[in-house]
């Protein structure tokens, strides 16, 4: 049966590994979210007056884009402070 110390060391290593993984993928995740946001803006931007593909294409894609649509709406909350979001991402300041 593993001792308490061994269990603690295992948990600590697991935690350190996970922290490193989060750090390694954090920027990539941020970039992916930005790309997803751009994709949603490109497809659905026509509804807000942005240049977009012919609206029938957007309508054909719309039924499969609930996640992107919700993300697009939530991103409007961050739209006021994009630099702040990036700074916190990069742990600046």
């Amino acid at each position, binding site marked *: 049966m593993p001792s308490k110390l061994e269990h603690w060391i295992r948990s600590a290593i697991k935690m350190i590994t996970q922290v490193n993984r989060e750090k390694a993928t954090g920027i990539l995740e941020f970039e992916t979210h930005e790309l997803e946001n751009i*994709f949603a803006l490109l497809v659905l931007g026509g509804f807000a007056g942005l240049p977009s593909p012919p609206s029938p294409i957007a*309508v054909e894609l719309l039924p499969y884009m609930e996640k992107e649509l919700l993300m697009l709406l939530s991103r409007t909350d961050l739209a006021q402070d994009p630099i702040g979001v990036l700074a916190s991402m990069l742990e600046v300041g």
Partner: protein
Amino acid sequence: MNKTVFFLGKGGVGKTTLSSAFALSLASMGKKVLIASLDPAHNLGDALDIQLTGQAKNAEPNLDALEVDLAYWVDKYLDDSRRQLKSNYSYNVTLNLDSFFNILKYAPGTEEYAVLWAIEDINTRLGPLYDVVVFDTPPTALSLRFLSLPTISGLWVKELSKLRETILSKRQTITRLNPESPVAESCVDKDDDKVYGQLKGIGARLRGLEHLFACESFLSVIVNPDQLSIDEALRIQDELTKLGIPLSAVCINKQGVSDMVWEQNPSLARYPQFTYDFSRGGISTREDLLSIDTGPLADLFLKNTQNPIIERKKK
């Protein structure tokens, strides 16, 4: 096989008259023909003196006719998307989007797309039942827009597909490095991603229509002996060249309508020319349509059918 025919030209040059006469001529030769009007302001039924709907109706031995109901296609398309959306989205989001669908019916581009869907349906569902499908088109502006849509929309779909591929590849990398990341819950595989699958599906349909217009169709532009219709025919020729759609023939309709001295434009003169005299008594019956000699044009078309454009391009 090159079996689809489009008659293009300025409003009032005689597209419906010549396309009906051409279809009747082919039918009298024993070919099984379908003639379909794509013009939102249909008058094919008037020309053939028969009540037409969106369903093919027999007009003459070997000849069926229909008038595409664009409103039906717009409604069908929006209803399909709305139904799909309701089954995929959570209730409150669906509720917010419902109003969008009510105004989309009038969004720019919807009518042109409806024409495309109708052509696709006729080509795939009804096409195999006939030897020849003749399309009587709307005036130039709408016709050029639906002919160019597969190319233009295809570019959008291509770029969106590329962006989607990048997103999926980044999601895959994140999932591999950090399986506990929230991104891992998203779709990471191209085969499983419904948006990518839908883009691929739209792309394939658009490529099919692009191929139909560029490689499997016989396009004839109709002019009258007047400068306005010639100028418009030149614009059609320019646009078709940009889209890589070859023009097959030029029909000069209403020859002799006035005594004005008239000369064909050299740019249009290089295509096979077919001349039709102005009928002083008007064209009011089916016999009048049959009296228009579209035989030489039909012969050129049938010659083309045996030597389709795609094969000529390869040579």
